[in-house]
């Protein structure tokens, strides 16, 4: 049926209206002009950065200061107008994703959605001032310093740099090589330093000031040269069985060989126990760089204390608290013709402790120990024991600790009285001498003037190769509440004199130090440094030129000891030093040459 004209007109009007409505309802496309308004490098996107860095956007210039990091693959985060497309060198970018090399200027081209208009933004990464200007390395390279036979690296600890140099080296004109962060300036007394070029006099400590790029932060590094008599090197450890604390090294005067005696430790880990051998004595000697056993499990069960001595004719002796008997008194054994045997009967009538031993010529033996809260001594004259106390000489107050040393004909006992055990003197100490016939006092119930007490840590006694008795004790006479090591020697005229000033290290608990004297008469002191983690062993020596104790040399054990490392320290006749300690049931040894 044909449509009427009227109806056609109506339909046409409706269609035109609908078309008009359709056109008007269609959203008008907005084309945003190219615009980049924010730019940054976020730590989350860049492993080389430790924090976020926001750039300054000024017109089409973008600048950001970064620390001295690898800029070859940095990921930028930026904000652009909606619909804008960003490209770098033709590559489409994704904010927070795409990495670029910012070692040089990078151009970000931002284009509108139609690709008709674009703006180029130039991004420049500059160097930010170092927030922590520091010296990263310090050395005296051999090619720049004729005073040295090899390159010597400095040890940087905080802002102190220690450099161990040969004792006789001329240090008045040395050229240091160093590194620091980018942009930093290094000066000494205001003079800018050039690594590997600038010469300084290092006869006194030299202060290097490191200044960052804008001078906002500085640091001062003090370089001190420590003159070394020789060099410490790690020797051969022993861990075939677990070594109990108290291992002692001695030099056999006959063959100049190091010998060690120790108690086998009962394992406290997964190591299988050995009921026969655990807690018994072992002995070995160090030959051609290896430990050679000279007796395993040759003793009864050993209690808490033991000691080791070698007589002038080369016979090794041990003394130990015998845990196989009751009460646990002291047993002495000697090594002869390839086997160990007991020396006389046991020593004591009650349980003993703090057992120390000295062997004299003729294989005579002196034992000092604590029994029933008294000092109890035994003397083996080659055929029988003579025992007794020291009441007549010392009043025999309750001792806190005992040490022994000696030479071919004399034994010396150092002891500390417990608290105010005698005449109200707080931890007074004694040095007693036994000449094979009688005891005499070199120092009795002594407390240094100005000191609160003799330190109950940091003491030892030794006899130098020339027969001089050296004593190390600790006191607080000169540093208020802090205790320092003090070394003294006993003179031929019967007086004591101090060797150098006190040693800088502040004595800590368990700081059981050792003193040994080299054949040239130089005293060395070794002590555990408990202020570092892991704990280390430090060694100082008395410098005859400066009359002061040297800066410490740090020796690192296997895994850092816990508790008392039980140092033992000797020199052979040629001046080679042997320092041992027990580190995690391993016997660690360092050698000095």
């Amino acid at each position, binding site marked *: 049926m044909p449509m009427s004209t009227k109806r056609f007109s109506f339909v046409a009007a409706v269609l035109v209206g609908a078309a008009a409505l359709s056109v008007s309802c269609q959203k008008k496309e907005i084309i945003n002009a190219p615009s980049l308004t924010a730019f940054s490098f976020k730590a989350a996107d860049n492993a080389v950065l430790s924090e976020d860095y926001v750039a300054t956007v000024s017109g089409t210039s973008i600048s950001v200061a970064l620390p001295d990091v690898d800029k070859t693959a940095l990921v930028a985060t930026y904000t652009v107008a909606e619909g804008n497309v960003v490209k770098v060198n033709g590559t489409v970018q994704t904010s927070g994703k795409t990495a670029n090399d910012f070692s040089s200027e990078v151009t970000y081209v931002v284009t509108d959605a139609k690709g008709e208009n674009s703006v180029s933004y130039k991004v420049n990464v500059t160097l930010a001032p170092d927030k922590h200007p520091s010296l990263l390395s310090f050395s005296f390279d051999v090619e720049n310093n004729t005073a040295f036979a090899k390159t010597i690296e400095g040890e940087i600890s905080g802002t102190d740099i220690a450099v161990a140099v040969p004792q006789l080296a001329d240090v008045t004109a040395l050229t240091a090589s160093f590194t620091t962060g980018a942009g930093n300036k290094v000066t000494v007394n205001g003079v800018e330093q050039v690594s590997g070029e600038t010469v300084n006099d290092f006869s006194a400590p030299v202060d290097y000031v490191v200044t960052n790029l804008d001078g906002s932060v500085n640091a001062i590094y003090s370089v001190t040269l420590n003159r070394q008599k020789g060099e410490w090197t790690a020797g051969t450890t022993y861990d075939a069985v677990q070594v109990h604390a108290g291992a002692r090294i001695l030099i056999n005067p006959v063959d100049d060989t190091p010998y060690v005696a120790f108690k086998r430790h009962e394992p406290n880990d997964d190591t299988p126990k050995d009921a026969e051998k655990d807690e018994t004595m072992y002995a070995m000697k160090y030959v051609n760089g290896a430990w050679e056993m000279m007796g395993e499990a040759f003793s009864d069960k050993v209690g808490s204390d033991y000691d080791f001595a070698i007589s002038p004719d080369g016979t090794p002796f041990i003394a130990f608290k015998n845990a196989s008997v009751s009460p646990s008194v002291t047993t002495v054994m000697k090594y002869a013709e390839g086997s160990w045997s007991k020396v006389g009967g046991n020593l004591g009538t009650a349980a003993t402790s703090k057992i120390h031993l000295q062997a004299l010529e003729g294989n005579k033996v002196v034992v000092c120990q604590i029994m029933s809260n008294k000092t109890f001594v035994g003397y083996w004259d080659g055929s029988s024991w003579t025992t007794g106390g020291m009441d007549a000489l010392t009043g025999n107050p309750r001792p806190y600790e005992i040490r022994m040393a000696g030479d071919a004909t004399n034994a010396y006992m150092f002891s500390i009285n417990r608290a105010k055990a005698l005449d109200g003197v707080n931890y007074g100490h004694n040095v007693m001498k036994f000449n094979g016939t009688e005891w005499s006092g070199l120092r009795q119930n002594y407390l240094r003037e100005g000191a609160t007490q003799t330190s109950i840590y940091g003491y030892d006694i030794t006899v130098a190769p020339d027969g001089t008795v050296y004593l190390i004790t600790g006191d607080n006479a000169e540093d208020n509440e802090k205790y320092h090591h003090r070394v003294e020697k006993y003179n031929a005229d019967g007086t004591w*004199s101090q060797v150098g000033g006190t040693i*800088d290290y502040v004595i800590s608990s368990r700081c059981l130090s050792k003193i040994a004297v080299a054949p040239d008469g130089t005293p060395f002191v070794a002590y555990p440094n408990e202020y570092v983690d892991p704990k280390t062993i430090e060694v100082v020596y008395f410098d005859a030129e400066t009359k002061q104790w040297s800066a410490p040399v740090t020796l690192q054990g296997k895994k850092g000891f816990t508790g008392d490392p039980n140092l033992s320290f000797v020199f052979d006749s040629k001046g080679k030093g042997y320092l041992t300690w027990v580190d995690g049931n391993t016997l660690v040894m360092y050698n000095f040459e």
Partner: protein
Amino acid sequence: MKLNYIIMAIASVLVAGCAKNPLPLFDEPFVYLETSTGSDVAVVGADVKATSTYYVRISCPAFTDPIEVSYDIICGEGLTDGVDYTVLTAGRVISFLPGIWKMPVRIQWKEHAIDESKDNTLTIALTGTQPDTFTLGYPGPAAKGSKLVITKKNL
């Protein structure tokens, strides 16, 4: 009644506890001297031939302009400059650049026997700061660390 006594006793203890002097609060800038082990006294042997380092330290918030600390060296009658010691640190003013909190004062000790009957001390004494807002020594009446006394002894 007995309970009242107990309550009163507890209250007394609490009141006494509140009245206890508070620990000193070091909230003011100060400058002090000390040895490498933190002491304000030291002993050096008369036979020593070595350089010792003593430290001037400042305690204050971070700063942007250098801080200057003045000090003096006071020599006892028993010691002679150039014979018993030489102060290696030039001048008597130490400048702390931003970021530096500890500066050395170095004294070279010379081997020379001393007369024990005389005053054989060498004292490093702080005299002032610029800006002058720093307390000399630790805050408190003792002014610990405002001077460091080194005694030369025949050991």
